[in-house]
């Protein structure tokens, strides 16, 4: 397996993605969504009181990306993670193109690595675009007023911006972990419906568990709990326990899913 080979596969995959409607729609939604939300907040008198920072959303533009972050954890991140991850391998099954792909000059490992890098890269692209867009929407439409933290402390605008950026950074690893779950399901089921749908259902079930007051050790082992680890960064003094645990859990999901997916693809018989 060579790096050049992987880069070549990534290039091909990205040119395929660029031609797909769903990729463009997802990117556009990540750009437009936060602006639509901020504009709606500006126009209407009520605020989303049941979300963290919902009450502050008209007072400080920095609350907007945090409300979007809290809301996106419910189902937006699972959708973004599985959109390409759950389809990048099974699309070859759908079109019956595995034999064509594997008889080219790239090895099976290179094809695997290239496709995984594409899926992870696209998930991260969508998350970054959503983050940038929601910060821009908040600052441009609401303003850059100081933000009241989760400990009641007033954070000056530069300080608030730093915390917001850090909070968004914490979802990178769990998003990668979920993408890896989607990749594994895409390979294992050979179906894009399962590859995209099952991670979504799994993460909704995991979040349902968080409403039930079950054993804490199970809640912390669920990858969706890592999407809420940013709360500690907005407290005074900040606490990092959930973040450390969430990152470890996400890393384990990522490593195990990629490993099983790789073995599964290596052992698969395409000749039949």
């Amino acid at each position, binding site marked *: 397996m060579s790096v050049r080979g992987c880069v070549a596969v990534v290039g091909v995959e990205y040119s395929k993605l660029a031609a797909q409607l769903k990729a463009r729609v997802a990117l556009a939604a990540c750009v437009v969504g936060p602006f639509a939300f901020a504009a709606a907040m500006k126009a209407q008198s009520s605020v989303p*009181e*049941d979300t*963290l*920072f919902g*009450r502050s959303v008209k*007072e400080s533009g920095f609350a907007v990306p945090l409300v979007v972050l809290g809301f996106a954890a419910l189902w937006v991140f699972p959708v973004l993670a599985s959109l390409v991850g759950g389809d990048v391998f099974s699309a070859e099954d759908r079109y019956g193109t595995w034999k064509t792909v594997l008889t080219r000059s790239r090895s099976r490992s290179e094809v695997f690595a290239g496709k995984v890098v594409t899926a992870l890269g696209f998930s991260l692209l969508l998350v970054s675009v959503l983050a940038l867009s929601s910060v821009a929407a908040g600052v441009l439409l609401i303003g850059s007023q100081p933000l*009241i933290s*989760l*400990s*009641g*402390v*007033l954070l000056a605008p530069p300080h608030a911006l730093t915390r917001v950026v850090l909070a968004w950074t914490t979802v990178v690893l769990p998003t990668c972990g979920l993408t890896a779950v989607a990749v594994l399901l895409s390979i294992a089921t050979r179906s894009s419906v399962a590859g995209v749908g099952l991670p979504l259902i799994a993460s909704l079930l995991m979040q349902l568990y*968080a*409403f*039930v*007051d079950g*054993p*804490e*050790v*199970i*809640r*912390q082992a669920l990858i969706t*709990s890592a999407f*809420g680890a940013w*709360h*500690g960064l*907005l*407290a*005074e003094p900040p*606490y990092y*326990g*959930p973040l*450390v*645990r969430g990152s470890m859990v996400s890393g384990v999901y990522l490593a195990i899913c990629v490993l099983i997916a790789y073995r599964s693809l290596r052992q698969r018989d395409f000749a039949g």
Partner: protein
Amino acid sequence: MRRNRLPRSLIVIAAAATSCCGSSPITSARIEQSIEPTFANLVRVQVSWLKMPPMDASEFQVTASCRRQLSGSDAGAGDWVCTLRWQSPDFQTLRDTFDLFVTTDGCYTATAAGESLGGPRLRLSDGTEVRNLLYAFEGCFDTT
């Protein structure tokens, strides 16, 4: 031999899950330690919004006493009630009760149970309106 391995490991995991984690990390001590400084900090911000002389958060001497609404257990997510004793900016000792909803990830929303702290919005002397920070607020604490 190999056939026995899976059930045995499942039993070990189940035993570990029930023994180490039978009690929820959402305890009155954690909630009280979180709501006391949060409330004091919010009073400090509110005082500055109301254009009163600035005060330090520690001057409000907030002490909280929280208990779970559901009888029978003293830990867990759900509805809690906290009574906060604190010193107002004009040095009177006040007692205010808050209804809390605490989620399993250690975040809570506190809503004032009475009208003693005013409604959701306050009118300033110059006619402008601000949100009453003490009427409803949120906070989070470490559950690990």
